[in-house]
Structures are given as structure tokens and as C-alpha cells.
């Protein structure tokens, strides 16, 4: 193990989490330092791989592996696979994660659970890195679940607050539903391929004729079913996609993400914007070889992504909680990424993932800075904050423009890549227009947020002031990244480097964004279509938003209440699930215990009466009975 061992990247945060939990938690400074060292150490080690990766031809990879479990002829390994795809993800997770650790030093200062917070953060980083470097499906599932639990711990950080606890439960259980499909998908694939290793599976799929071979034979109800690998692949792929829908909060498993804002703001930035929710997109890119051959699977993915992007954007328009607007915006942007993969653009999806991580983390941290200053999440209690907190404002502005896709900010490069895909896809008017309309909505709700928070008339209480440097420094770095990431990431060398070795050979190469005049003009137009109405309503005050709201009537309520989907789910949980539970419990009490057990109660009573005679109340007498029995046995032996 050299000093730059990839295992260190993975396990330093775990060691940090344990060290804090079992001893360091009493020393706050030490606890946070250990946590920071672990994540930044990982970042530095990752950086040492970059030159090597650049010099290669895109097939650069580090691999290592140990046997975790072996039984019969089945072996489960736990290992490291770092290729271009993992490398970019490692940089994002440790880099953005590291900045958020720094920010937390300021944000969580004085909180009684300071050490617990950093322990959970380190546990999360370990879990997330495990997904990034996983070499097989079982390993990724293990870390998938660990990410779920770290998120549960962090959302429910304020465990005495009922809403926070409810949100953490919702997140965990929604993800469990997704993981139900995920695990079944893994089971099917493991048995069909005979391996769970990504690289080996990718090779098998690429093999000539593999897809038409029979994968499974099943005798059900007298019928004999033979499934080919091709059919198998899309069913299993769709099941695996359920896991993605859970973690990346795609419709209809999106409900947990907005509620997850109950956690401390750095958590929202790290987990629910930059890294954890990106895990699903990363997984899709990692196992794209499964989806590539199947048109059905690709179509499902594309439409789920497309719908989520649009649906979440419509909700974001009508929210007043600053973190919730950002949460729905995250949903929407994740929808873009998922859709891009469904359209075959894994590279551009990953680029959007990276740029989004920068500017969305910056936005969340900026929102945290604002909340820290005015002690409210409600944008109606903000306004005119730009003079009071200039650093927060300028970084927030830059990130907003990046999210809106305005050139030359990084969001322009990646989002335009996705829009370009939809326009080239030739899949009907919905796929052509809806993403573009969503982009207009994005500009609208983001500019609305910006105007309501930082401009206009002051509506806040007290004397807000700029946050301490530990909080503003990460904002500046992230904003800088949001500016420069575009041209840097989109140079041809980088595109060639950050490519996964599990990428199907037949996958279409990423078309380079040239940033020509037409594209730039179109992007500016999309921005203006959303920004101008927002300015008229919330900046200049020409249009009265309340009147618009009244004119929209039930439509606004529909959007404000998030299409009533949470209500429907709640109804199902309260009525269907609880009733099944009540029925089973009643059945157990009345039928099984009542009739079967107490039906033979006379046996019990008779037995009881017999036993009562020998019950003298002294335990020692009973034990003597035993000894007598043993003596009898001994006697038999003699």
C-alpha cells in the first residue's frame, strides 16, 4: 500500500467517523479537524491521479479487490475501480464535500451536536465514495444503503423536532422502496451474467449474440417461459432504475427530497444537491451498457427524467421557502441529467452533474448564509439583502446565472449540451420542446428567488450581517468554479479522459459544444423569457404577483401543494398499509390465537392443573427434579 493508495481515499472518512464516535466527540476542534483532514486528504490523493489519467487514451483505470464473502461457487468481492468516470466523481465529492466541511465549521459553530454532525458527515463521505469506486453491483448496493442511512441521520439531525424526524423516515422509506427494485434487478443480473462485476458484465453485453441467448427458464402455472438476455436486460435494467429513482429523487419517488430540507443547510448542500442525489445519475452512467441495447429501457428513463424536470420546475415557481425552491430546482436538474442518459448522452449528463454540483452547492450554502442572517426560510421575510451581505449576494448571483444556463457560465455549457441532445433526438415534439420550456421556467423561478431575497424592499426582522469567512470562503471558491468549469471541463482532452471503461463501444461520442453565435443567442433568449417576467413581478413591481396568483386560482394551489402527490401517498400509507397491518394483527389475535390456540385451551388447563400439583414455589425443588432425572440416567448406565 503506497501513500497514495486508493483504499485510503475510501477509508479515511470511515476511520474519522469511528474516531469521533468513540472518543474524539468530547473535543470539538479535534473532531472537526479529523473530519476535514479525511475528506481533503482524499481530494489530494485523487489529484495525484489526474496527470496519469490525462496521459492515457481513456482506458486508464486503477483496480484492486478483496474477497468479501465466498460460499459454494459464489464469490462476492469488494474492491476499487477508478476510471475516468470515477475520477471526475471523486473530485466532485471530495472537493465540493471538503468545501462544505469548511462551511460547516462556521454554520454549526456552537451547536451542541457539533461532533455528532461531523461524525455523520464523515460517515456520509465514506458511503458516497464507496459508490463512486465500487467495482460491482453488490458493493454499490452496500454503499447505496449506507448513503441512505447517513442521509437519514443527517436529515433527522434535529431529532427532537418532529418534522425533521418525519422527513428522515420518509427519506429512508422512499429509498427503501426504490431499493426493493434495485436489489431484485441485481439478483436477476447476477444470476443471468454469473457475475456482478461491472467490467465483466460490460464485456459480456458487448459479446456477439449474447443478447439473444436464453437467460432464464421458468415454469409457472403450467407454462414454460424462456427469456433471452435481451428481454432480461431491460426488465432488470428497469428494476435497477427504481433504485436510481429513489436516490436521485425522480418522479414518482421524489417526495422525500423537498422534505429533506429539514436537515441543517450544509447537509442540504452536500447530500441533497451536490453528491448523494447524483449517485443515481452516476450509476446510470456506470452501467450504461445495460441500457444501451434496449430501446424500452432508454425510453422509460428518458421520459421519467423529462417529466421530473418539467414537473419539479412548475412546483418551484409557487414555493416561498428558499430551500424548497432550491430543492425542487435540484429535482428538475436531476431530471435533465436522467433524461440525457435516456437519450444516450452519458457524458453530457455527467458534465451537468459536475457543474450543477458547483453552482447548486453554492446556492444552498448562500441560502444557508441568508437563513443564518435573518433566521427565517421564508422569502417573504427577506428582501434587499444585497447591501447587507455582498459576498453572499454576488456569489449567489453568479450561481443563479449559471443555473439558468446563461453564457458564459458553466451551466450554459452543460445544459446546452442536454438541450442539443433533445433537439437532435427526433423523438417528437414533447421531447423537442418540453426541456426548453422547462429551461424558461428555471430562469423564472431562479430570478424570482433572487429578486425576492436580495432585491426589492426589506421585509426582514433584526439586523442581518455577512457570515464569517469560514462560510463565505467556500462560497467564493464554488462561485469561481461555477464560472470557469465550463470551458475547462469541455475541452476535448478532458472529455476524452473522463470516460468510463465500462462504456459500450457503440455508444455515441459526445458532441463538442462550440458555443457558436446561434447557440449563445438561443440561451440568452431562453434566459430572457424567464427572467423578464420575474423582474417585472418581483424586481420592478410592475405586475402584482398576488393578482397573478388570484387569476391562476386552483392551478396555483395545485402547484403550491406539489400536485397533491404527497397527499396521495399519505392516504395510501394511512389506509392501505395500516389496514393490512391491522388485518394481519387482528387475524393473529382472533383466528390463530383465539381459535387455534385457545380452542385447545383445555389442554393448557389440564396441563396447568397437573403442573400446579408439583408447584411448591421453590425453584430449588424444580432443579432437584432435574437432578433426579439425571441420576436416573446415570443409573441406567450402570
Amino acid at each position: 500500500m503506497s501513500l497514495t493508495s486508493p483504499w485510503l481515499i475510501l477509508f479515511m472518512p470511515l476511520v474519522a467517523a469511528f474516531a469521533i464516535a468513540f472518543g474524539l466527540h468530547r473535543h470539538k476542534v479535534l473532531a472537526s479537524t479529523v473530519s476535514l483532514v479525511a475528506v481533503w486528504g482524499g481530494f489530494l490523493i485523487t489529484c495525484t491521479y489526474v496527470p496519469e489519467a490525462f496521459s492515457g487514451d481513456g482506458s486508464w483505470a486503477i483496480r484492486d479487490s478483496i474477497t468479501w464473502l465466498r460460499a459454494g461457487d459464489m464469490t462476492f468481492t469488494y474492491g476499487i475501480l477508478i476510471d475516468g468516470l470515477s475520477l471526475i466523481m471523486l473530485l466532485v465529492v471530495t472537493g465540493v464535500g471538503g468545501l462544505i466541511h469548511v462551511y460547516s465549521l462556521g454554520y454549526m459553530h456552537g451547536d451542541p451536536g457539533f461532533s455528532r454532525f461531523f461524525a455523520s458527515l464523515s460517515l456520509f463521505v465514506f458511503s458516497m465514495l464507496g459508490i463512486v469506486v465500487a467495482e460491482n453491483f453488490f458493493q454499490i448496493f452496500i454503499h447505496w444503503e449506507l448513503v441512505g442511512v447517513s442521509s437519514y441521520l443527517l436529515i433527522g439531525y434535529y431529532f427532537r423536532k418532529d418534522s425533521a424526524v418525519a422527513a428522515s423516515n420518509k427519506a429512508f422509506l422512499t429509498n427503501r422502496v426504490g431499493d426493493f427494485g434495485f436489489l431484485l434487478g441485481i439478483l436477476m443480473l447476477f444470476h443471468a451474467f454469473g457475475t456482478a462485476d461491472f467490467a465483466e458484465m460490460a464485456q459480456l453485453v458487448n459479446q456477439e449474440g449474447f443478447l439473444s441467448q436464453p437467460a432464464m427458464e421458468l415454469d409457472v402455472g403450467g407454462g414454460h417461459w424462456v427469456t433471452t438476455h435481451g428481454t432480461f436486460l431491460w426488465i432488470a435494467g428497469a428494476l435497477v432504475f427504481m433504485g436510481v429513482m429513489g436516490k436521485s429523487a425522480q418522479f414518482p419517488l421524489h417526495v422525500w427530497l423537498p422534505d429533506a430540507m429539514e436537515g441543517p443547510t450544509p447537509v442540504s448542500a452536500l447530500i441533497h444537491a451536490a453528491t448523494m442525489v447524483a449517485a443515481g445519475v452516476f450509476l446510470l452512467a456506470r452501467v450504461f451498457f445495460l441500457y444501451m441495447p434496449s430501446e424500452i429501457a432508454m425510453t422509460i428513463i428518458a421520459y421519467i427524467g423529462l417529466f421530473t424536470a418539467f414537473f419539479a420546475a412548475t412546483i418551484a415557481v409557487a414555493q416561498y421557502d428558499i430551500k424548497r425552491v432550491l430543492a425542487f430546482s435540484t429535482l428538475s436538474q436531476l431530471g435533465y441529467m436522467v433524461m440525457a442518459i435516456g437519450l444516450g448522452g452519458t457524458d453530457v449528463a455527467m458534465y451537468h452533474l459536475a457543474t450543477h454540483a458547483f453552482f447548486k452547492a453554492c446556492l444552498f450554502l448562500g441560502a444557508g448564509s441568508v437563513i443564518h442572517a435573518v433566521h427565517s426560510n421564508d422569502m417573504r421575510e427577506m428582501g434587499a439583502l444585497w447591501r447587507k451581505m455582498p459576498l453572499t449576494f454576488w456569489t449567489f448571483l453568479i450561481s443563479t446565472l449559471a443555473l439558468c444556463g446563461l453564457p458564459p457560465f458553466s451551466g450554459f455549457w452543460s445544459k446546452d449540451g442536454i438541450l442539443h441532445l433533445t433537439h437532435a433526438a427526433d423523438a417528437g415534439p414533447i421531447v423537442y420542446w418540453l426541456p426548453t420550456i422547462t429551461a424558461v421556467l428555471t430562469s423564472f423561478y431562479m430570478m424570482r428567488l433572487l429578486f425576492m431575497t436580495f432585491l426589492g424592499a426589506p421585509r426582514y426582522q433584526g439586523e442581518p450581517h455577512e457570515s464569517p469567512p469560514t462560510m463565505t470562503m467556500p462560497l467564493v471558491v464554488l462561485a469561481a468554479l461555477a464560472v470557469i468549469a465550463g470551458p475547462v471541463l469541455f475541452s476535448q482532452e478532458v472529455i476524452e479522459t473522463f470516460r468510463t471503461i465500462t462504456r459500450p463501444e457503440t455508444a455515441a461520442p459526445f458532441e463538442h459544444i462550440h458555443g457558436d453565435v446561434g447557440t449563445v443567442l438561443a440561451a440568452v433568449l431562453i434566459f430572457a423569457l424567464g427572467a423578464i417576467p420575474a423582474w417585472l413581478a418581483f424586481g420592478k413591481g410592475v405586475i402584482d404577483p398576488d393578482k397573478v396568483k388570484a387569476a391562476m386560482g386552483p392551478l396555483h394551489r395545485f402547484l403550491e401543494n406539489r400536485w397533491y402527490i404527497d397527499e396521495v401517498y399519505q392516504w395510501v400509507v394511512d389506509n392501505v398499509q395500516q389496514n393490512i397491518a391491522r388485518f394481519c394483527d387482528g387475524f393473529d389475535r382472533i383466528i390463530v390465537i383465539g381459535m387455534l390456540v385457545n380452542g385447545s385451551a383445555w389442554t393448557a388447563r389440564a396441563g396447568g392443573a397437573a403442573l400446579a400439583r408439583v408447584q411448591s414455589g421453590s425453584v430449588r425443588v424444580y432443579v432437584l427434579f432435574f437432578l433426579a432425572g439425571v441420576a436416573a440416567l446415570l443409573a441406567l448406565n450402570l
Partner: protein
Amino acid sequence: MNDLLAQHVLLLLVLIPVVVTTALFFIPADRHSVHRWLSVSGAGLTGLLAIWLFFNYDQVTRGFQFMVEHEWVPSLGIQFKLGVDGVSVAMVMLTSIVYVAGALVSMGVKKRVKDFYILLSALVAGVFGVFVSLDLFFFYFFYELAVVPMYLLIGYWGSTNREYATMKLTLYLTAGAFVALLGLLLVYFSGITETPTFDLTKILAAVDAGGGLDFAQQKFLFPLLLIGFATIAPMWPLHTWSPGGHAAAPSAASMMHAGVLMKLGSYAIIRIALPILPEGAVYWLPWVAVLCSFNIIYGGYVALNQKDMKFVIGYSSSSHMGYVLLGVASMTVLGMDGAVFLMFAHGVMTALAFALIGFFYDQTHTRMLDDLGGLLHQVPFIGILFVMMAMASLGLPGFANFASELMVIVGSWERYPIATILAVFGLVIGATYLLRTVRAAFQGPMDPRWENLQDAKGPLQRAPFLLLVGVLMLFGIYPLPLVELISTGIEPVVETLLAAEASMGG
């Protein structure tokens, strides 16, 4: 030294608790600390022996090792014969771990300490005896030795509805054992071996040599053994003794009961029923799988509607035993290894659950979810351990339960895809009722009634909890050594089953 130990290790294992029991008789009843420390030391010694067994069982040679053999009643074919294979070593480890933890948490027992420890040690002697016996007569004898102290432990030291619970438990277990005994006697008289014998190794050798019973007999006998043993497992609809029994029992008894006693049933199925009656097993196991998937879902939903925490854990245990038997029914090395591993993991996990519940119940005198709430703030150590227990139970990676359930699920997929889908769905239900329990008892605003609750303080009070959770994490993070050990015992059983299936023509 090692050789000497190798000759006597199993005898020692059974004798240590017996010696503790006997010694306790002669210590005056008011010397509580002597009783306690004597029991804890005895438990610790068995723990050391279990660790020794783990490292010294020869995985290359396999088979039954460290044999102890004495003629007993030759005319009836009874001998005192002890020996362990990989499966028994795993179970011995489980028993000693739970024994140590149980003896430690019982430090808090106040009434009739001496009698309590006498019974606890007698129970453990019985359990060790079952796991190391290779003679069916003694197997049965030790089994009863384990059940009867349980009756008294619940009857005297128990809580909620204890008379009803203890009577039901004893009758169920005795009735189950009786059915199994009937099956065993039929095997004994069936003429597998030339002269009737209770010697398991001789019976197995005869079966392996092709002298097994014919299919019709096996088809008839297997359900007897299955029903008899599955009552202890416990399997739906024979499970109702279990949750009530857990609820009534004092902590250490609940721990032994759920942690170890329940495992005797599935252990007996693997040790006796499957290898002696392989064709019967091949015929009936698909039905077991159906029942298992039902058991998993049903137990989970019933747990979701419970208000008493011990009932939640009780029904969840019943649900988890569904995974164990599904793994057994899979007839794959992976699935059956997973089943044994899950017996181990679940035993440690439920012991932890009951120890934790007992800890605060002693102070709150209620386990009702509606009465509790926000305890995490007042008792952070117990609270965090409870969350970890819940996470282990709902199958979080990093704990042994996940690894073992994964093995069961992967192992049974090929043979029973639909049962496996239901089993995977059971994981969703499991998460639902466990998170609900954690939320109701430990999170949210705290009831001022619990302001004076004491947390576990000091190494002695914390030791049993840390031991249990440590074991779960150790084998959860690196399961390979334990699984390879279990494999040595499982592989011959699977071979027998597959050979039987082949001979039956598919």
C-alpha cells in the same frame, strides 16, 4: 495443552454451566455479588472456549471434530457422544456471546438473584448440550433441559401476562418437541441401521451408504420432524407462543429465548431432518418456501401494528425466521450458509434488542410506544445502540444481518423467484416498523415524565451492549471467516440433498 483441550473442550463447554449451577446451590442466598460474578466468569469461560473452537476447528478435514464418546445404554443404542462441525461451532459461539451478555445485564436483577442465576446456567447447559450432541437421545434430553428453566424464569421474574405466556410457551415447546420425538423414534425403529441406535453419525453413515428410508416413508416422516422443530423456530401458524413469551420474560431470559432457543429449531432441521430424510426434504421444502414468504410478510405487518416494543421485536423475530427457513429451503450452499449465518446474526441482534428494552423498562415500567418518546436525549448511549440495533435488524450493510440476508436472497432466487421477491419486499416492511419504533420511543419531543431516566454508565453497564453490537459489526464488515466455517458443515448437507433430488429424477 492444546491436545488436552481438544479432547475435553466440548465436555467442558457443557460442564461449566452445570458446575456454575451446582456451585450456586452452596453459596448463601444473600451473597449476591458472588452469584453474579460466578455466573459472569462461567459465561466468560465458555466464551473463551468458543473462541478457541473457532480458531481450532480444522476446516480442511471437516466433519465432526473434538469428539467425546462414552457408552451409556448399549442395549438401547444410547451413547454420550459429543462433536461439532462448522454449523455447531457457529451456534456455540452465538450461545456463549448471548450467555456472557445475558449474565452481565442480569446484574440488575434484584429478586432471588441466586435462583435466577441457577436457572440461567441450567438453561445454557441445555443449549450447549443440544448444539454439541451427536446422539439423538441426549439431543432431546438437553433440549428439555433448556426449555424447563425458561418456564420458571418467565413464571417468576416475568412481567406482562406472565402466567398465560409461560404456560403457552411451555406447552407449545413441549408439544412441538413431542411431535419431533415421535418422528425421531420412528426413525430409530425404522431399521436404517442394523440395530436401532440414537447415534446420529451412524445413522448418517447408513443413509450415505444408500441405506436410507424409501421415499414414501420419508414423505411421511419429514413433516413430523419439520412441524416439531418448526414450532420452536417458530413458523407460522405455530408462532404465537413466541411474541407473548418474549414480552413476559425478564431481559436475560428474552435474550436467551429469542437469541438462542429459537435457533434450536432451525438447527435441528439442518442437523437431523435434512440429512436423514433428504428425499422427504426435497419433496416438502418448496412448501416450506411458500410458508416462509408468507411468514416474512405476515410477521412484518403484524409487527407494524404492535404497541408494545417487545411485541414488535417478537413478531419481527418470527418474520426473520422466515428468511432462515427460506435459506434452508433453497438447497444451495449460499442460501443455507446464509440461513445459519442469519441464525447467528439474528440471535445477537435480538439479544441486543431485549437487553436494551429491558434496560429502560426497569426504570419506566412501560414499553408502550405511546407512553415513550424522545428518550434519545435522556439516554443517548441506550438510544444510539437502539438505533444501531434497528439498523442491523432492517438489514443495513455493515451489520451481520445484511450479509446473511443477502446470502439467503441470492441463494434462493434461482429455485424460488416469487418467494424471494416477497422476501425482498419484507425488507421494506422491516424498515417501516423499525423506524416507526425508533421514532415513537426515542425521537421527537420528550415526555417530562422521563426526565430522571438513567443512561448506561461505566464500562460494566455498557459492556454487554458493546459486546453484542461489536460482534454484529465485526462479522458484518468481514463475514468471510465465519461463513467459510459454516460452509464446512453445510456443504455435505447440500450434497446429500442434491443427490437425493437427482435420484428422484429432478
